[in-house]
């Protein structure tokens, strides 16, 4: 499916989701018994919850069906998987799952300790520095290519090292 067709599909789905949300919100506001302020609060809350769920569901369905391509999530320019990307993904998983478990258990927003932030910081910094080294290689390779006698056709992959 082309990008244009994908765009039209997502636009249609978006409109349907907004209409469904508005219908549910109005139904709550009209038929649920109670004070007007309470009805308004319930209508907005349920409406937003349903809208967020529908958005998330459409995105997940698109990822699962391959309309949103995540096959290159860990891939580098050279084609191999990247260790720094993989470890960043692992820590995002771990902290994300921990957060959901803790919120589900306490029903409140938890305090995030400094060492958790340090862990995420180290992980993200590794990815950033790794990218920096890669960029440095690119510049270094450009300098090298001007000083060597290698034919230009053989130099196309320069600077495409893995992170």
């Amino acid at each position, binding site marked *: 499916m082309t990008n244009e067709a994908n765009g039209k599909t997502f636009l249609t789905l978006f409109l349907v989701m907004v209409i469904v949300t508005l219908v549910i919100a109005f139904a709550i506001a009209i038929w649920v018994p109670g004070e007007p302020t309470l009805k308004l609060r*319930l209508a907005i*809350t*349920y409406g937003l*919850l349903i809208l967020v*769920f529908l958005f*998330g*569901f459409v995105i*997940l369905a698109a*990822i*699962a069906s*391959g309309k949103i391509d*995540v*096959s290159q*999530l*860990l*891939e580098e320019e*050279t*084609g*191999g*998987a990247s*260790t720094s990307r*993989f*470890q960043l993904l*692992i*820590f995002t*998983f*771990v902290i*994300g*799952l*921990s957060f*959901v*478990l*803790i*919120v*589900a*258990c*306490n*029903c409140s927003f*938890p305090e*995030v*300790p400094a*060492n*958790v932030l340090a*862990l995420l910081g*180290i*992980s993200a*910094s*590794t990815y950033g*520095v*790794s990218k920096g*080294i890669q960029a*440095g*290689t690119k510049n270094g390779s450009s300098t090298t290519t001007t000083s060597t006698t*290698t034919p230009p056709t*053989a*130099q196309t*992959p*320069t600077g495409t*090292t*893995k992170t």
Partner: protein
Amino acid sequence: MRFVVTLAYWESIALLAGFFGILFWKLLTGDIPLSGLLDGDVRDPASLEGFSSRASVGRAQSLTVTLFVGLWYLLQVIHNPREFPQLPATIVGAFAGSQALYLGGKAQSIFLGRLRDLLK
């Protein structure tokens, strides 16, 4: 209002579990390829491209430490899901050291070449 909280709880669980599940499934089936995860580029003047790809010890140790710290952390949360667990300074230090070793090794192999070639 209690039903709203329950709905929000199950909604977030469903979305996050779905997201992690789909990514995990794609990793398992190879839709997100992991080939070359432990291969690093090494400066190689003999190669036409200037670099060659070899198995990297730095990547292997970085991956091992990452998996160990990740699993340890997740187990701590499952054991006591009331708060984020406190990480001992030794684990943070070990993780930082592992990443520093990986980055140092990577910089050395890319900018200077293999260590055994340097020591010749």
